[in-house]
C-alpha cells in the first residue's frame, strides 16, 4: 500500500519532457518534488504563475508570491506572471498538458466530485471545474476508500459533480486505474496489494484483463 508520497511518486512517472502541468492542492502538490531527473516540466499555478518553484527560504517569504493553495512560493528562472483571465485562457484553451487533482468521488464513466457535500461542507470549486472541463489529460490522486471504509471509485457519483466524463487515470494507495468504456481498467497494483483486494475496494465496475503488474516506484 502506498502512502501519499508513494502516490505522488507514481504520478510523477506520468510526466513527460516539455509538459506544462497544473497540480491541485494536497497530494498533487507533492508531485512537483519527484520530477524524473533530467526532465523539464513547468508548473502552472492558476492564480497566475508559469514556472512555479520551491518554497522560499525562511525569511524570504513574499506575501505577493503565493500559489493557488495560498502557500508562499518562489519562481524558477524563465517564469512568467499573469492575471486570472489569462491563466484560465491557458487552462480552457488546452495549453496545459496535464492536470492532477484530488477527488472525493470518481465514477466509472470518469465523472468527478470534489467540491461540495450538501448541507455539510461547501468550499467552492475554485478552478477545478475549468480544469476538468478543459484538460485533455486528467489524473486523479486520491485514497481508494474513505474514512468509513467505503469505496470512492463508484458506479455513479453521489456528490455534486465537478465535471463529467473527464478523468483519464486514477492513482490511489492501492492501484493505478484507467477510465475505459465500461469502467475502471486496472493497470497496476501497489506493492503487496492483491487484485482481489482492489476489486473489493472498488464499487464501480473493475476491468481486469490479463496479468496486472505491480507498480515500480
Amino acid at each position, binding site marked *: 500500500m502506498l502512502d501519499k508520497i508513494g502516490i505522488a511518486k507514481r504520478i510523477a512517472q506520468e510526466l513527460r519532457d516539455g509538459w506544462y502541468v497544473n497540480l491541485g492542492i494536497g497530494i498533487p502538490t507533492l508531485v512537483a518534488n519527484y520530477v524524473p531527473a533530467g526532465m523539464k516540466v513547468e508548473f502552472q499555478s*492558476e492564480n497566475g504563475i508559469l514556472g512555479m518553484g520551491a518554497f522560499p527560504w525562511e525569511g524570504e517569504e513574499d506575501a505577493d508570491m*503565493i500559489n493557488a493553495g495560498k502557500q508562499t512560493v518562489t519562481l524558477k528562472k524563465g517564469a512568467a506572471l499573469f492575471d486570472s483571465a489569462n491563466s484560465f485562457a491557458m487552462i480552457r484553451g488546452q495549453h496545459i498538458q496535464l492536470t492532477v487533482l484530488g477527488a472525493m468521488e470518481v465514477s466509472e464513466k470518469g465523472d468527478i466530485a470534489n467540491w461540495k457535500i450538501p448541507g455539510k461542507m461547501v468550499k467552492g470549486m475554485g478552478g477545478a471545474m475549468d480544469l476538468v472541463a478543459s484538460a485533455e489529460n486528467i489524473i486523479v490522486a486520491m485514497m481508494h476508500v474513505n474514512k468509513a471504509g467505503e469505496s470512492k471509485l463508484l458506479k455513479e457519483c453521489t456528490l455534486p459533480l465537478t465535471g463529467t466524463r473527464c478523468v483519464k487515470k486514477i492513482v490511489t494507495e492501492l492501484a493505478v486505474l484507467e477510465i475505459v468504456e465500461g469502467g475502471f481498467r486496472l493497470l497496476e497494483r501497489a506493492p503487496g496489494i492483491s487484485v482481489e483486494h482492489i476489486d473489493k475496494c472498488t464499487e464501480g465496475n473493475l476491468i481486469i484483463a490479463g496479468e496486472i503488474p505491480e507498480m515500480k516506484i
Partner: protein
Amino acid sequence: MNKVVHDVQEAIQGIENGMTIMFGGFGLCGIPENCIAALVRAGVRDLTCISNNAGVDDFGLGLLLKNKQIKKMISSYVGENDEFERQMLSGELEVDLIPQGSLAERCRAGGAGIPAFFTPAGYGTEVAHGKEVRIFNGKPHILESSLTADFAIVKAWKGDHFGNLIYKGTARNFNPMMAMAGKITIAEVEILVEPGDLDPNFIHTPGIFVQRIFQGEKYEKRIEQRTIRKR
C-alpha cells in the same frame, strides 16, 4: 485626467447599501485592504460582493462578513472562512459559487462589452442549471453572462495620477479584469507616482479603466500559508 483622490474616505464616496462591488485579490493576496477597512467603518450594508475568495475570519472580506454587511457573495472558493460557512449554511448569506475561470472571464467580459460567452466549465454540474447548453466541436458548453459592478475596488503595487496600474507578483490575479468591469473603479496602490514614471510598455491596467486612485496608508499584506524551506 488626474484621478487622485485625497484619501480612502473620498475614494469610497458613493458606495451605498445594496450595491454590487467587485474586490480584486486571490485569498489575502492583492486585496484592497484600505478600502475594505473603510467600508467596515462606513457600515454600508446589504452588499453583493464579487470576489474570488471571502478572506479569512478576521481579515480581508471576512471583516465585512463578520460585520454582517454582505448580503450575497459571488465567489469561486471560500474554504478559508468559518464564519462564511456558518452564515451560508444558516441561510443568512446568499452565495453564488462559480468556477474560477468563468468568474475571471465573466468580469473581463463585463468590462469588454461582451454580454455572454460559451465555456465548457461547469457543464453537467449544478453550475449549469438553467443555462443554455450548446455543442461546439463535439463538446458541450454552457452560456455564461458577463458581470459588472457599481464599484470595482482593486489594489495595485504602483499607480500614476492617470490611473495606470502595475501589479506585483501574484497580487495581480483578479485585479485587472475587475478594474475593467466597475462602473466606477477605485484603485488603491502602495506607491503613487507621477504620469510618465511608469513605462507605457509595461502597464497592466491602462488608466482608462480607473476613476479614482490613492495611495493606501499602510499594507499589512498578511500571509495565509507561510510555507518555507529551512536553511
